[in-house]
């Protein structure tokens, strides 16, 4: 779900960066407001690296296997650090693996990062019920990741299809949107279930890792 360099017009790339700046600013503002950021930077950085690595885990979906996006889980664990973490993760992916791109970094950050922030608020909403419940952690972990992937796919598909040079005719465009969206529905369930299992695991093993209200 990474848009590569060269595919989007410069105006859309610029709009992506223009939208990324206020969200990054908002996240950094919230991080600074939440106390001394120095203490949390090492935690957020190592967890960013851990997320980057965890996304390499292959989930078998016969006849193939899939890699997870994990932006929902990022929101659940990192809270306001999720957006800067995704920005850095996307930058590394573009530079190390040529996955995504430098000009499309802003657009990709919106595709992945904005839903991650949303998933943070969804999961935090679960804390108003019972903070120490495995079921609540599992249910809201599932919802957070499910919604994050759903929103990411929606933004990705709309940005990609509406900006292909040459353009599609209406029926092809509609078919492409439906096909791409439907192809990602199983991923929404897989990510949701994965995040639910991880949220329950973390609540048992290291509850400090989950975001608090």
């Amino acid at each position, binding site marked *: 779900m990474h848009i590569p360099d060269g595919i989007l017009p410069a105006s859309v790339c610029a709009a992506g960066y223009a939208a990324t700046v206020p969200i990054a600013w908002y996240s950094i503002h919230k991080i600074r407001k939440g106390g001394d950021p120095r203490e949390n*930077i090492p935690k957020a950085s190592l967890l960013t690296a851990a997320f980057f690595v965890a996304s390499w885990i292959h989930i078998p979906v016969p006849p193939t296997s899939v890699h997870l996006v994990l932006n929902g889980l990022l929101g659940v664990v990192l809270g306001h650090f999720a957006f800067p973490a995704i920005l850095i993760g996307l930058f590394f992916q573009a530079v190390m693996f040529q996955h995504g791109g430098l000009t499309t970094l802003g657009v990709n950050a919106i595709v992945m990062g904005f839903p991650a922030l949303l998933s943070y608020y969804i999961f935090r909403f679960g804390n108003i019920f019972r903070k120490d419940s495995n079921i609540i952690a599992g249910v809201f972990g599932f919802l957070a990741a499910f919604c994050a992937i759903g929103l990411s796919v929606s933004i990705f598909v709309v940005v990609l299809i509406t900006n292909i040079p*040459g353009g599609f005719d209406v029926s092809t465009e509609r078919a492409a949107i439906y096909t791409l969206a439907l192809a990602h529905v199983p991923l929404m369930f897989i990510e949701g279930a994965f995040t639910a299992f*991880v949220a329950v695991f973390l609540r048992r093993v290291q509850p400090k890792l989950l975001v608090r209200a």
Partner: protein
Amino acid sequence: MRFGFDEYIHLGSPLHRWDPRYKLIGLLALIFAFSFVSDLRMLPAMVVVTSAAYIISKLPVSFMLTRLRYPSFFLLAVVLLLPFLSGETIVMSIGPLDLRQEGLVAVLLIATRFLSILTIGLVLFSTAPFLTTIKAMRALHLPAILTDMALLTFRYLQEIGDYLHRMETSMRLRGFGERRFSIQGFRILAWLGGSILVRSYERSEWVYKAMILRGYGQAESLKGEFQASYTDVFALGATLLIAAGFVAGDILI
């Protein structure tokens, strides 16, 4: 697990010697100018500038070819799909498939822009140590939260990657088969992800204490870390002119 990032930083080309701050500004401007190009007549100039930058950098061609392995899937998808799906003017029919002119133009445009931007990106990040490039970003006033996170993430990425590799090996040795999908297997993979997070979190507490002992958070000056010469400024001016030329050319032609 190795990323091969700093493999060619010793080559000593003019691009290696260019002040990283000026190089960042200049080459990023060029990259964005390339993404602005939408006229086919500008493509030969783009290829010439990209090739010249790669030749000057002295990076081997084999390096670029290995870096193209992953994005080649994307290129293949674009080449196979767009000419048949995008546009209205039919150039040729192959069985039930219609080859369209707008799609062919789009393929040429996307592929050239993509390869040019990717090549300039390789030149930008492979001609200086990666940590120096991040420090240059900080010197250009990128927020410290982002640059500190980027430095630390890069520092531990390799180690955590090795940890995942060890865990997967030991799981296989204990008979864990991940070829078939099962709820139990899926849950074990989720626990694997969770244990990577827990281990990284615990490690980060030690890292933070060690960083504080070494003076982390004290006012740090990057003055003297980078010193630009007239040649660096001239190179920046020339690159910005070329970038502006692409934008102006695309508008005027």
